[in-house]
């Protein structure tokens, strides 16, 4: 085939912990194209590209560069063959300026001394040719995210790569920065560079790519010409059909409105808005699900609801009472529980025993606490109760939870939170990384909460989970809901489109 610059053949990858991330993927890259790599969370996009960049090794499979078979042991090998990658989380030294970062690892010397002047001359010339303007002399810590990304791209160009891999480059950028980035990418294409754009955003992929490869659950679905497809086709490929079987849902009796969120605005860590004017309600006896690809404001939403992050505008009402910006303790005390995303970060204390973790958050109240002292006997018998009732596999209630499997840790969190009898349960990625039986267990827990007339807010990037469990659902994209309704009102394709950034009314009217 003419012009094939990279060919990856039958790539398999099993991570050391047993996750089967890629199951026989073929990937072909042609000289001078912008190639979109599209897929949901966990589809294996990053894994595939890290393999091409030599950062991790494939379990099996072959890679050819311009027809020659290669084996990369480290990124340096890939760079030698003209392949470079910009990671989602940039790899820059914040205390260094752009020049030092660009030079690092490939520093020209003169008389034994570092010659940054030579680097600067070359980088200035690159900036001239590509329009990527950056202040080269200030520390990275003082540059905006968009500027840092430019430094990363310049770093690759300085290393004379022909193939640039950009992993979700737009997820951290403002709309204007995205436009500028795309202009740069077009320019680089004109100069003969080949670019891989990893993304889950349909419109972006269609607007700039020549060809698009879609991955789903570690397999390649297809490689298509961007001109010949519409967002509907891509959405269908990305989400797939077989995943969306629907179980007959128990028609719980929905009760009173428990949680009401109005026009909520929350900022992310970068200081830009991550949640942009969300409004929704959750009633007793229902599960309200929020689907969407990770990193579209879900974490910030959950943290704001639970008092872990400041609400900038809008309000959160719980059982008619305004709880906006209350402390975590005040919010918990009112009857809101959280199954957090980060199990060992916010859910449990790894070095504490099962008993200590079981009473965490209730430890200062009777019967677990008497005056100044913890009532250990009471706490232990409570922990033993949980172990029995929730089928947690553990040697005893005295082992530190870090020795439990992920599934059993999650069971413990669920057990603790459910046993508090909350009016509202917020479940954030509750089954991520769990095996089948633990997943089943957690989902049944949520359904039981609902049948008891409690309200459940389920936020998950596992679309199947949201569709199966929710009575009503919304799809979140860049801090907004693209659509809200009952799961059975949406087709697979429509959900896929919304996850890729099209609003429901655009989807329904069938254009893009």
């Amino acid at each position, binding site marked *: 085939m003419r012009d094939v610059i990279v060919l990856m053949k039958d790539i398999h990858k099993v991570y050391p912990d047993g996750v089967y991330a890629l199951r026989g993927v073929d990937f072909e890259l042609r000289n001078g194209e912008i190639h979109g790599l599209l897929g949901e969370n966990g589809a294996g996009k990053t894994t595939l590209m890290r393999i091409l960049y030599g950062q*991790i090794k494939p379990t099996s499979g072959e890679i050819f560069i311009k027809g020659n078979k290669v084996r990369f042991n*480290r*990124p*340096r090998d890939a*760079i030698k063959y003209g392949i470079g990658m910009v*990671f989602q989380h940039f*790899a*820059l*030294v*914040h*205390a*260094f300026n752009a020049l*030092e*970062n660009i*030079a*690092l*690892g*490939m*520093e020209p*010397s003169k008389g*034994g*001394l*570092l010659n940054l002047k030579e680097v600067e001359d070359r980088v200035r010339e690159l900036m001239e040719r590509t329009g990527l303007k950056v202040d080269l002399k200030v520390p990275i810590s003082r540059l905006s995210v968009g500027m840092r990304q430019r430094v990363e791209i310049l770093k690759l160009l300085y290393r004379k790569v022909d193939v640039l891999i950009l992993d979700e480059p737009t997820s951290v950028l403002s709309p204007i920065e995205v436009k500028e980035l795309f202009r740069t990418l077009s320019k680089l294409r004109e100069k003969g560079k080949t670019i891989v754009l990893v993304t889950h955003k349909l419109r972006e992929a269609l607007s700039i790519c020549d060809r698009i490869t879609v991955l789903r659950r570690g397999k390649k679905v297809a490689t298509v010409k961007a001109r010949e497809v519409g967002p509907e086709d891509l959405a269908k490929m990305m989400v797939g059909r077989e995943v969306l079987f629907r179980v007959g849902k128990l028609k719980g009796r929905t009760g009173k409105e428990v949680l009401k969120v109005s026009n909520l605005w929350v900022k992310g860590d970068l200081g830009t808005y991550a949640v942009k004017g969300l409004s929704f309600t959750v009633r007793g006896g229902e599960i309200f699900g929020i689907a969407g690809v990770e990193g579209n404001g879900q974490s910030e939403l959950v943290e704001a609801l639970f008092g872990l992050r400041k609400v900038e505008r809008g309000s959160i009402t719980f059982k008619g009472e305004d709880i906006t910006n209350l402390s975590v303790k005040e919010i918990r005390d009112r009857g809101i529980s959280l199954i957090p995303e980060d199990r060992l970060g916010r859910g449990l204390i790894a070095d504490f025993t099962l008993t200590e973790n079981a009473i965490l958050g209730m430890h200062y109240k009777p019967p677990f606490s008497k005056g100044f002292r913890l009532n250990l006997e009471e706490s232990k018998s409570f922990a033993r109760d949980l172990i029995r009732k929730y089928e947690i596999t553990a040697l005893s209630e005295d082992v530190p939870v870090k020795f439990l499997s992920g599934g059993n840790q999650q069971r413990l969190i669920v057990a603790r939170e459910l046993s508090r009898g909350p009016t509202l349960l917020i479940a954030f990625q509750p089954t991520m990384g769990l095996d089948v039986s633990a997943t089943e267990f957690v989902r049944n827990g949520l359904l039981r909460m609902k049948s008891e007339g409690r309200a459940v807010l389920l936020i998950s990037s596992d679309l199947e989970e949201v569709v199966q469990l929710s009575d009503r659902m919304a799809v979140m994209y860049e801090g907004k809901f693209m659509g809200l309704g009952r799961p059975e009102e949406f087709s697979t394709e429509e959900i896929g489109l919304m996850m890729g950034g099209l609003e429901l009314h655009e989807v329904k009217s069938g254009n893009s």
Partner: protein
Amino acid sequence: MNYLILASLLIGTLRTSIPLIIGAIGEIFNERAGITNIGIEGVMLFGAFIAVYGTWLAQNPFIGLLWALLSGIAWGLIFGAISTHLRGDQIVAGIGINVFAMGFTEMMIPLIWGTYGYSESVNRLPPLFQLYGERISYFLPLTVLLAVLSSIVLYRTKWGLRLRSCGENPLAADAAGISVYKVRYLTSVFSSILFSLAGAYMGIDWNDSFVKEMTGGRGFIALALVIFANWKPLLALAGGLLFGFFDALQFRIGAALGVGVPPQVPQMIPYIATILFLLAIGRVRGPSAAGKPFVKE
């Protein structure tokens, strides 16, 4: 007379500042590369001991110096392993080195020399020259040279850039194709050699015998000096002279007070000065990744 006292105070300052400056520069390299070794004191003490022992055995101070060099390499490899492949707790390891060196050297004195608390006298290294009857050591110009060269290496060479990247963001260094572990091993060996030679200086140049706990906390003052110097070798040189001045002052005042005043009172001076200096500079920020293990994937 006053003039002579002043001169001897100044010479004393130069003398006492040498181990502080060498120790601080070693630790600056460490922390710039992402290692925190608070076992400076222990490696120094061990270096002093081994230098005296080697000199005593061979009747040659240069052999003692060589032994101290080898001891520094060994400690550097051990600490390098702890802070890279073994991913140990560097603070605990540093404390371990200090405790071990203190106990081990004290225990060895009677086994070797049959005395308690101090060794026999040994030959010293030859001095560069004598001034007002005081020895001026070769270590003095070498220390100044070390500070200047260190500053050039850290800030003006590619090795310095790579080393500093490992202390700021090892992930970025790794992504740029730099072997973080290799850099940290080499740095640990280099710095421990410096600590050990600083100890040798105290055993066979400044003094002519080993005395238990003879480093007297100078490894810890060096640690404070790193912060005072804002992790910069030239500032460590200047700061070391300041810290050394109080150390020298302690001897002078101790001598002037004579008996009747407990010796611990003047001995506190350098430590109190250290604490006051650190309070005065307030919060500072060192290399971001110092003391943190680096784990890939």
